[in-house]
């Protein structure tokens, strides 16, 4: 049966982060996040999942720049379906290593992908087909028979192909620049597999820097990633993607990634980090206060470089 929780037309889907996670993320769910790669990572949503002690989650994403590492360290994760998990500018993710190598805080099931196969899996999910064929990874150990893939040949020729199974997340969480209460949203910059993930997901949570009136969104329908009826919840969470960047709003906090790397080398130190930055604050506003007004201000985009307007008028 199609899970249509929250998938509907409604004048307001606006919830607090706490309500959105409580209502739409359950133990055992598969969650796609970080789909724009290094930008627009929904850290505030991930932190609320940790605070609500969700367990046995499956995390889905192309690469994860420390968010998956944090959820793994907090003990929320049973399985990862991903191409790359670590810290893009600083190196390895220590919690990911501890879980994979030593079962700390508990054993982790790893389904290895490449970026392209994650993209194809989510696209298959979005298209409603069981798999999509590709010519990548042939001969690699990622593509061997113990993995999620199958091998075949083209029915129209003789090319060898990798069959990438559809990925259908229970929940897809997107961080975007702006949204309206009814679920319309605009995101810009590099989007990775954001649209595919939002079209594949059974439920979609949109976290926005700004809540705008509906006509702002409908003034530029080409910039909408997912039809509003597919959005289960809209959360207003300024700064919710820090330390990742949000084009036009704030830059990437490079130092924060380096500090996280240095601060999570042992399981005990990582627990302290999660206690300080996640469990010890009650939400994103308190997180930003802990970060410090000066540091937060230093990341703000001050310039203005709007796109040239386009004319959508029908008459």
């Amino acid at each position: 049966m199609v899970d249509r929780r929250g998938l509907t037309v409604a004048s307001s889907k606006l919830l607090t982060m706490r309500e959105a996670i409580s209502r739409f993320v359950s133990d055992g769910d598969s969650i796609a996040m970080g789909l724009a790669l290094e930008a627009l990572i929904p850290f505030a949503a991930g932190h609320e999942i940790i605070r609500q002690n969700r367990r046995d989650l499956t995390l889905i994403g192309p690469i994860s720049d420390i968010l998956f590492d944090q959820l793994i360290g907090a003990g929320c994760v049973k399985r990862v379906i991903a191409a790359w998990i670590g810290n893009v500018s600083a190196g390895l993710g220590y919690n990911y290593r501890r879980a994979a190598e030593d079962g700390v805080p508990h054993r982790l099931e790893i389904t290895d992908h490449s970026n392209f196969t994650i993209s194809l899996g989510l696209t298959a999910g979005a298209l409603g087909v069981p798999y999509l064929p590709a010519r990548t990874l042939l001969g690699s150990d990622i593509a061997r028979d113990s993995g999620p893939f199958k091998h075949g040949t083209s029915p129209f020729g003789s090319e060898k192909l990798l069959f990438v199974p559809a990925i259908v997340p229970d929940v897809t969480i997107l961080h975007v620049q702006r949204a309206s209460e009814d679920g319309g949203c605009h995101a810009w910059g590099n989007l990775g597999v954001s649209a595919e993930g939002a079209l594949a997901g059974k439920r979609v949570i949109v976290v926005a820097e700004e809540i705008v009136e509906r006509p702002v969104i409908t003034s530029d329908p080409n910039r909408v990633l997912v039809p509003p009826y597919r959005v289960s919840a809209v959360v207003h969470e300024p700064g919710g993607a820090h330390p990742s960047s949000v084009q036009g709003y704030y830059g990437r906090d490079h130092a924060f990634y380096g500090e996280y790397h240095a601060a999570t080398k042992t399981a005990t130190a990582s627990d302290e980090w999660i206690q300080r930055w996640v469990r010890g604050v009650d939400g994103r506003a308190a997180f930003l206060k802990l970060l410090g007004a000066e540091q937060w201000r230093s990341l703000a985009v001050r310039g203005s470089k709007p796109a040239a307007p386009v004319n959508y008028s029908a008459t």
Partner: protein
Amino acid sequence: MSEARYSSAELMVVAGSREIGDGDVVFVGMRLPLIAFALAKRMHAPSAVGFFENGVIRDRPSESLLYTMGDPPNIEDASMCCTMSTVMGLLQKGEVDLGYIGGAEVDRFGNINTSYAGHVGKEFVKLPGSGGAGDIASLAKRFVVIIDHNSRRLVERVAYVTSPGNGDGAGWRERQGLPRGGPSAIITTMAVLRFDENREAFVASVHPGFSTDDVRENTGWPVRFAPDCATTPEPTEEELRVIRAIDPTGFWTS
């Protein structure tokens, strides 16, 4: 050794940039290749086009240093911001001339491991994984590996093939069904290796300050040297000036 004039990373960036031909479509990747692409664009390959797997396409490099390909300066004035499927699809179609891959381990046939160091199922180190590397290695017309040179990283046979190189030699890629490509160079902290007709790596040039014995002792298989094995050309003053303008604090290149 001329380490006072330039760093090892700067020499690797320069060697990496010289692999780019003018007009090449380049799948850029992370870290040093970000700078190698920007350097090539300013020096000898002004018509090169850069692909980034997050969906950014640029024909002019970003004005400021990139810590990641998703940083806002890489979006501003991009030629196109699209989806990962778009850039990966163009890669699969055969439109990418060159891709860069960093590695934890590379073997004598140019296979790369960035997934599990040591022995899978026993004691191992969990590395971050493929990212887009497996796709670049499979689908670009050629790829270049950038890696530290020691016998733990340049190994006889990788424990796990994340990104397929030449498998076990000539003909292997064709048998797997890979449509094209393979490794064209391995740029290390000591040398540049290229591939012979059996698709095995050999040392083409040794960096200034290192001997052939250094390279031999730090390579995990009995590596062969080209009969005309040369010294890797040093960075020019102009190349160093451009690199330092891009990375003034030496975040990636010190």
